[in-house]
């Protein structure tokens, strides 16, 4: 039937061979689109995520430390600190050939991932201070012990950047070799729409936490969806356009699974996060105090790399870059890459623009 269609098309007048070839290609793509759409609807496959082999090094309450071994051609291991709450960390190891973890281990880095876990109602008393002064130091020390290395590089992504920056700034005894901030807000005066929506006088965080206890995943999802209301439309349009391509479809399935799995925030964590960071911008001002220690970002004296994404609406470049101005090191660099918040860490753009840059910067200093 396909051949008959093309034969008929061939009989039509005023059709150049090029046009005919393009029509043939488009018809084939449409058939594939229909086939893949049918599969997605009738027989949806659960995407396999987190393909890189790993082992659990340590567990405390809900949080775990994972090790991804490498050939270890780079001497200094890397501790990766992502966001707490919001989303699951398998985005960093999404799929083969589309995984930041896989890329870094292939480059010879021993990779340690902090997995904060999914906190429940019983953890509503957990604060940012607990995460920075209790959980993170413990996981970092376990990573160091496990690696047998004398020094360790730390990479904070998204919220993981202010958390890890607060940790390294208040723990000078931790043998920090390099520090990287990837799309992590530091100066919350320039944090974009979330800054406006969570501003004092607009958002009553105390009432919110006192009423709800924790911040449910659905609320978190709503906040992020509102940040880019047209995202779902453009995502589905792009899916339809690329539906003929099985690689695109498998990537879409994995990313879509992640993008719809939101995590709740422990109540007290959210209270301190919004009040101290978004509303009072204490981190960059040097006014943040954790476990009796002032968080002074000038205490970061190792080489520092800050990576911003041009179209990031969660942590716009203007709130990432100021880290470079406050740290006490001459070996510091800020780079701004194309794309948005997620495209720094997942997707084809990340594997081309971001990961090689981060790996080469680190390798040269490890």
């Amino acid at each position: 039937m396909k051949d008959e269609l093309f034969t008929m098309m061939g009989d039509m007048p005023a059709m150049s061979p090029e046009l005919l070839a393009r029509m043939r290609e488009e018809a084939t793509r449409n058939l594939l689109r229909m086939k893949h759409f049918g599969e997605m609807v009738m027989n949806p496959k659960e995407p396999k995520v987190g393909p890189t082999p790993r082992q659990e090094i340590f567990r405390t309450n809900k949080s775990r430390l994972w090790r991804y071994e490498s050939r270890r051609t780079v001497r200094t291991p890397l501790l990766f600190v992502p966001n707490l709450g919001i989303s699951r960390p398998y985005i960093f190891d999404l799929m083969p050939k589309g995984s930041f973890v896989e890329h870094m281990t292939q480059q010879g880095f021993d990779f340690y991932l902090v997995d904060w876990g999914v906190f429940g109602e019983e953890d509503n008393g957990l604060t940012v201070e607990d995460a920075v002064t209790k959980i993170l130091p413990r996981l970092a020390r376990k990573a160091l012990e496990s690696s047998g290395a004398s020094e360790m590089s730390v990479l904070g992504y998204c919220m993981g950047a202010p958390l890890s920056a607060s940790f390294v700034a208040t723990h000078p005894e931790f043998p920090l070799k390099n520090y990287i901030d990837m799309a992590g807000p530091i100066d919350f005066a320039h944090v974009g729409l979330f800054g406006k929506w969570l501003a004092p006088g607009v958002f009553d965080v105390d009432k919110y936490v006192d009423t709800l206890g924790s911040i449910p995943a659905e609320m978190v999802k709503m906040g992020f969806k509102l940040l880019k209301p047209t995202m779902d439309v453009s995502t589905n349009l792009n899916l339809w356009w690329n539906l003929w391509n099985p690689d695109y479809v498998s990537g879409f399935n994995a990313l879509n699974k992640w993008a719809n799995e939101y995590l709740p925030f422990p109540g007290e964590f959210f209270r301190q996060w919004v009040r101290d960071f978004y509303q009072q911008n204490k981190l960059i001002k040097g006014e943040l105090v954790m476990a009796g220690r002032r968080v002074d970002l000038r205490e970061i004296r190792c080489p520092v790399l800050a990576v911003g994404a041009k179209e990031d609406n969660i942590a716009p470049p203007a709130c990432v870059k100021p880290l470079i101005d406050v740290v006490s090191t001459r070996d510091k660099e800020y780079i701004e890459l194309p794309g948005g918040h997620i495209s720094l860490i997942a997707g084809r753009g990340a594997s081309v623009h971001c990961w090689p840059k981060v790996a080469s910067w680190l390798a040269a200093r490890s």
Partner: protein
Amino acid sequence: MADNTSQELLDMWKRQVEEGTQAWLRMMKQAPAPTAAPNIGMDPQAFWRPFMDQGMAAWSKVMTQGTAPSPDLMAQWKQFLDQWIAAWSRVLEQAMGTDTFAQLMGKQLEGFLNVSAPIKKAAEQQIDASLAGLGIPSRGQVTALARHVAQVEEKIDALEDKVDRVLRRLDAGAVPRTERA
């Protein structure tokens, strides 16, 4: 015949788009924009003009080439939709970035909390009473138990940290007598 019909249809559509664009621009020029949207401060012409111009340019190309609809039209249509979505995204982003929107959202949330708080409390009390009647632990009791377990785990971890510190200092031969005891 078929070519002429499709050409006529496309010409008609082109005229409609042109007229629609002109009408839109005339309306925008006449509209007192600053008073109509004082807090938003967006310029619809600035958003729509490049998008419409690009769309028109793409269609003009098709018309001047005189070709029948081809697969390239699909790509142009996709580009058209991408630009349309991007334009809307910019408009919405501007609108949502205003103080007015933030205040409105804050009030909506507060209203939601004002309504949901008493309902939530009443429902919890009702469920707790029912579960107590059946001799089943309530959600709050289970949560409290889990919290105690987490606290015990935290204490064990803290003790382990202290032991590790002492052992490291012992290894380094620098532990003071009081800590040894």
